């Protein structure tokens, strides 16, 4: 047996160059902190000095400028954000954020403002670009209604289906696997641009991230447990990119939560309806619950945005301009053969009955678009005269 190698005997690995690939980024990072050296090194110096002296500061025991002494009381559900926000000093969200670091809203932070860093990533500063009146209750609901795709689905009861139905199910799951995580990436993109003072919204967006991770997981598992993933689609990808690249949080939330997830909610409901196994039914039922929360946030976020905007007319027109494009890109996804055809096969009951399934899909299409327009209306955004998605599925029109 060889003697173990000692650290001083270690030789450089053959491709050492690869390990220098972060050199530039690391140098930039070091440079950035050197630039602010005066501030943080002074704090460090003071801390070291104090510790060396064996002296205590105890400044943190002083309560002037804070809201010390009023204890939050739990409600029947426990201690919610609503409960703690009732205490004066904690529940007031600024209309425009002016804290660009992690100092908690309601803490004694003003005396330290000048010595705190600025997080450049925080760019969504207007409350009404994020807020929805139901965001706290949806956050509580989301936490309470979490589920586990590994153990809450009776995977051992999954029955094998005839090949045409199995392929249709697996293709539908492939579509859902492909689209689900944009609804994670989109809130993630905006989460880290949102200042801490909007903590309630950040908290809700975090649950949406978790929900979408689970949806991607459950549909990937369902496909692979049933035969495998099938086809990805370019049309899906353009819709996902349109969501991810939306210029503002509200625009993207409209496209993702209200329109996109509204349609995916309809797909989930259809999936439950046409499911050929109890396992599939439960998967779709569980997912549609999560999706409906996201839709609900999307509707009320848009309602709040338009309802509080100082120039509502211009804001509405801007949203219309965005929706004119957004609807068409989303339509690109929802007309893809890789989505429409497997749904029609499942609706019809087999590949032989795909025509019958298309008839059913045409009926559902009207319902999907009606519900979308109703949600827009509820948000104070009337798209009925301007919607670019046809109310009738143009199936066989040219035939």
């Amino acid at each position, binding site marked *: 047996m060889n003697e173990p190698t000692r650290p001083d005997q270690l030789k450089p690995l053959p491709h050492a160059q690869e390990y220098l690939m972060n050199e530039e980024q690391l140098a930039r990072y070091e440079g950035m902190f050197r630039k602010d050296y005066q501030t943080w090194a002074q704090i460090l110096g003071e801390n070291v000095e104090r510790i060396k002296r064996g002296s205590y500061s105890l400044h943190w025991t002083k309560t002037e400028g804070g809201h010390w002494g009023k204890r939050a009381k739990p409600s029947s559900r426990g201690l919610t954000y609503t409960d703690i926000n009732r205490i004066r000093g904690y529940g007031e969200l600024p209309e425009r954020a002016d804290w660009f670091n992690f100092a908690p809203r309601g803490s004694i932070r003003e005396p330290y403002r000048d010595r705190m860093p600025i997080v450049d990533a925080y760019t969504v500063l207007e409350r009404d670009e994020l807020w929805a009146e139901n965001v706290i209750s949806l956050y509580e609901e989301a936490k*309470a209604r979490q589920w586990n795709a590994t153990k809450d689905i009776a995977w051992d009861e999954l029955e094998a289906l005839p090949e045409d139905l199995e392929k249709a199910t697996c293709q539908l799951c492939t579509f859902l696997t492909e689209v689900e995580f944009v609804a994670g990436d989109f809130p993630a993109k905006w989460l880290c641009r949102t200042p801490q003072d909007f903590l309630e919204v950040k908290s809700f967006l975090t649950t949406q991230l978790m929900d979408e991770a689970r949806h991607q997981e459950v549909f990937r598992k369902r496909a692979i447990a049933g035969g495998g993933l099938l086809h990805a689609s370019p049309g899906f990808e353009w819709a996902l990119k349109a969501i991810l690249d939306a210029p503002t949080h509200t625009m993207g939330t409209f496209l993702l939560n209200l329109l996109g997830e509204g349609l995916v909610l309809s797909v989930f409901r259809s999936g439950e309806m046409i499911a050929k196994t109890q396992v599939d039914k439960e998967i779709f039922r569980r997912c549609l619950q999560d999706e409906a929360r996201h839709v609900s946030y999307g*509707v009320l976020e848009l309602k709040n945005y338009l309802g509080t905007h100082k120039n509502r007319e211009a804001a509405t027109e801007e949203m219309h301009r965005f929706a004119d494009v957004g609807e068409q890109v989303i339509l690109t996804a929802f007309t893809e053969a890789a989505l429409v055809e497997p749904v029609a096969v499942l609706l019809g009951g087999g590949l032989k009955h795909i025509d019958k399934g298309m008839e059913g899909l045409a009926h559902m299409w009207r319902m999907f678009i009606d519900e979308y327009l109703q949600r827009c209306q509820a948000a104070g955004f009337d798209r009925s005269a301007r919607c670019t998605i046809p109310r009738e599925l143009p199936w066989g029109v040219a035939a």
Partner: protein
Amino acid sequence: MSAAADTLAPAALAFPSRAWFERLAALMNANRTRQEQLGYVDCIAQFTVLDGAPNGGPLAYRVSFEEFEALGVEEVATRELGSADFALEGSLAIWREMIESIAAGRGRPDLEHSLNRLSHMGTPLKLVYESPIRMDCYFRFNQSLQEFVNASAQFTTTFGR
């Protein structure tokens, strides 16, 4: 026998009736552990039997859900939504078919008789609502509502007609 235990006794109950829905509510409340797994339910759901009244008119049951409990059942002889967030309405025949499917499946309907399956196309059950925001409650709490009606397998249901 205590009042609570009496509520859960396996006597036959007629559908539609307030007592039938109150039994479901009692069964839900007796199984808090399951409700805690499923999560909060905050809505008022109306179950409308279009021809449920003795005169062949509508009879509806508004069930108030809050947190992990069904708080109460109100019987109204109307299709109107009133305080309900949404209503599921259908004929006695379709409600009967659903309840019998749940009983045959020992607490789980067959593929053709889940609430969503029956209501998704607007027939044979119809989802009725005034506000799409409140209607979304039907979806947000769908698994809980399904399990609420699934509990009907725990007692015998009789049908007057």
